[in-house]
């Protein structure tokens, strides 16, 4: 019971921390990491949900399955995000701000 709560609270805290970082930091890598921390938090709460105190029988496998799915999803999304960040860094040597501005202008013709 207490353990469940402990895990859940930790997960919640991680979620909030990740959210805060996501908002205040502008560097792509930090943002990606922040999102990862958040997802970890969510998964932690999920796993905590799976644990059922004795009278109700032992473990609920469904959240486990969901966590596995979630982890895989977050892994793939993280990989994609990292690659995108790298591409952004490579393809334009501008400062982040310029790029942010530029992101509002549609593509120019390439002839």
């Amino acid at each position, binding site marked *: 019971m207490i353990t469940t709560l402990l895990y859940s609270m930790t997960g919640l805290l991680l979620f909030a921390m990740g959210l805060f970082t996501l908002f205040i930091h502008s560097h792509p890598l930090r943002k990606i990491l922040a999102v990862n921390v958040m997802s970890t938090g969510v998964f932690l709460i999920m796993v905590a949900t799976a644990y059922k*105190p004795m009278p109700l*029988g032992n473990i609920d496998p469904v*959240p486990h399955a969901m966590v596995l799915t979630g982890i895989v999803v977050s892994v793939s999304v993280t*990989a994609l995000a990292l690659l995108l960040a790298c591409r952004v860094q490579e*393809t334009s040597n501008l400062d982040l701000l310029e790029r942010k501005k530029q992101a509002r202008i549609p593509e120019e013709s390439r002839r």
Partner: protein
Amino acid sequence: MKTEKKSIRRIRNRGKRLDAWQLLLLFLLLCLTTVLGTIIWTMPENTSGLTDAVARLQEQSGVESPVTAVLLNFRGYDTLLEVMVLLLAVIGAWSLAKAPFSGQAADTGPVQMGVVRLLVPLMFLVAAYLVWQGSHLAGGAFQGGAILGAAGVLLLVTELLFLPAIPALPLRIGLVFGPLLFVVIALFCLCLTGHLLGYPEQAAGGLILLIETACAISIGLTLASLFAGGHPEDDHPQSVNPTEHSDKEEWP
């Protein structure tokens, strides 16, 4: 416009103390956390979730491990889509760039090589074991695939295996193999039992193991090629001259 101003401020305050709106944000988040926390705290713990349902249908699922049963039988459809997510990540990654080509071979000392020579086969073994025991204990396709992926990463790092050099077709076949087999088996079951992924009860164990193995291989490849970060050299129709192909990076 507004987001830009924010970002400007953020850039300025890099490393400085938090300014007003950040503090406000912090405060809001704390409130949120406390609210959610109290809700969790006060939440009644009496729901047993789906434990009993799983326990009831366990023996029909064809595997002992409840998690695997849920993952590949009861909620196999989720897993099917999830494998697609992985594949999508690879396609997305490949659409972004060609795998970076670091001209000279890496300076791999004898120790490193030795380690790799020892580790990689071992990893394959462990992966196979994980997949196999997935049917009755914790473990399964994803765990196995992860190990395989790690092995692939090791090979890539030491450049014993070099992705841009790999011909694209076999790689693609390897990547698609798992998901495609999954779909085919699903449709096969549809023909047999009239339900997508509705395994016939006696064959369930075998089919699940088959799917797991295939997926493990594909997932391993997926993770490895995600690490390689880009599509191999010859992965699109008539890419005749790589020079014109590689000048894609320069922008007008």
